[in-house]
């Protein structure tokens, strides 16, 4: 049996223009309790890698440039 992927819309959105991951910042990735954010190694920007969100908001509150926005996940909204 093969393993497939199911696409979902990620609730956490990162504004690439504001994100300073390319300067070495990893704050949002560091604080997420569920470890669902990551740095895209090609773009050098943060992004939500796994749709496993508690919409708890440390990533948004602790981001030094205001680049992160937490939306309520679609199923909960």
């Amino acid at each position, binding site marked *: *049996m*093969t*393993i497939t992927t199911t696409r979902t819309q990620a609730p956490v959105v990162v504004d690439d223009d504001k994100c300073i991951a390319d300067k070495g910042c990893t704050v949002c990735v*560091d*604080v*997420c*309790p*569920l*470890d669902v954010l990551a740095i895209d190694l090609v773009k050098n920007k943060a992004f939500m*890698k*796994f749709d*496993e*969100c*508690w*919409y*708890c*908001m*440390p990533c948004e*509150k*602790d981001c030094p440039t205001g680049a992160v926005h*937490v*939306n*309520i*996940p679609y*199923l*909960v*909204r």
Partner: protein
Amino acid sequence: MKTIELEYDIVVIGGGTGGPMAAVKAKEKNPKLRVLLLDKANVKRSGAISMGMDGLNNAVIPGHATPEQYTKEITVANDGIVDQKGVYAYASNSFAMIEELDKWGIKFEKDETGDYAVRKVHHIGSYVLPMPEGHHMKRVLYRQLKKARVEITNRVVATRLLTGADGEITGVMGFDCRTADFYVIKAKAVVICTGAAGRLGLPASGYMFGTYENPTNTGEGHVMAYHAGAELTNLECFQINPLIKDYNGPACAYVTGPFGGYTSNNAGERFIECDYWSGQMMMEFFNELEGGKGPVFLKLDHLAEETISEIEHILHTNERPSRGRFHEGRGTDYRKAMIEMHISEIGFCSGHSASGIWTNERGECSIPGLYAAGDCASIPHNYMLGAFVYGKFCGENAADYVAGASDPRVDQDRVQIERERVAAPLSRSEGPTPFQVEYKTRRVVNDYLQPPKVTRKMEIGLQRFDEIREDLDHMVAEDPHELMRAMEAHTIRDCAELAARASLFRTESRWGLYHLCVDHPEKDDENWFCHTNVTSDSNGNAKFRKREVEPYVVELNDQEKVAYQRLRVASPATAKAA
């Protein structure tokens, strides 16, 4: 997959609430001790109070409440099944902890004279202290950890404890959820502060991580303690909470109650006298919800503008600040409409109920060198402040214990078995994914375990959990992150099985909705006025026993004993509706 070997005197597992306190207090007791705080997430933002806390729900402050009165309240809220010594020890140390937190810089609401602004939410006494500026909890704790020179390791998921020849603690094992490196940490004592088993039931929204509890808390502490031979208690006393529908966070009647908000039925009528969360309150909530008068709502739309703005400030900046965003998305304004509520999925959480790793009034578990505090430990209705007080007890008592403990010897056979168990999902290229296994387990929990509990349904649930146990041995993980979810699936399945077995063991109904059994609808004090404890026997099977309720330290009169049986508003509401 590298193996990293470390050695400490004390390892505290879980850096949320009780954990940081335990680590700081152990170091304060003896600064020479090597103390490690291990966290599955990052201590800076982990646990139930990741975004702060909007108030103390159990502050026992002189002039407002006494430890005796609080002990009575918690005794009746739990149908009499409590270790009063444990509750009393909390209550007697509650105020000293508030003062210490105050000194550390945590802000509590005070009146114009500087006295704590205590409010009444419980049925009998007054213990609620608002924290409108409570969003900075974790920062304050982090500062204390640094000051006390506690070592911190983040992103390591603890999976099993190590024990010695006499059953005593000798260490803990786990893995890094980013590298999959395997950790073997030798320790003389372990303090478990892993929070609730919050990913047990499936939220009604269907979103697996939209749980009431921080979904990072899957019950690892419960399961680790169980597999190490420690006793767990009262697991049939489920946690079920009244929450904002779909959002699944607190509505929150504790915050709004003192301002005049209340829980109402679809006619806008109050149906319970007291919004304090207890099994009996949840029973009334459930009856209203399912009995034709639902949905149930939180009613605030009758309040004045300045009151509503203050409530909004507290609820939308603290604890679950995305509440405001959720309401905005649906166009819900507290001023104009009631907020639809629902009941949560089931979980284990002593913060609001009475289940968990059994501990005594010193925070000690049933095996030497093991301590537990907070939502995973058994002291009932402990909330945040109880986690701090018991974190302190655990830290200080563990510091004393390790002074006399010999150098632990690690059982290398056990290490090898656990290393293989953890490595297995990464070595497979096909099989069910952790997502599938977890979803199915939790869906079965909802289908068969959710109260009202039915014997036949529990038995079917157990059959499904047995089948899922086999599936665990075929689960595949693509990367260390998915490995974390895979090992969580193990934990969730174990908790689910224990929840079903515990529910079958107690053949009566108790604690309102928490243990409402259709086949045994009556409370049976003659046979079941006792705790139920479970351990793992030599074959790894759950073994249950009744544990006596120890003699009370604070006696209750007959009227007090039934205070929580009379929560429904007497008659006007029903009369009007008829």
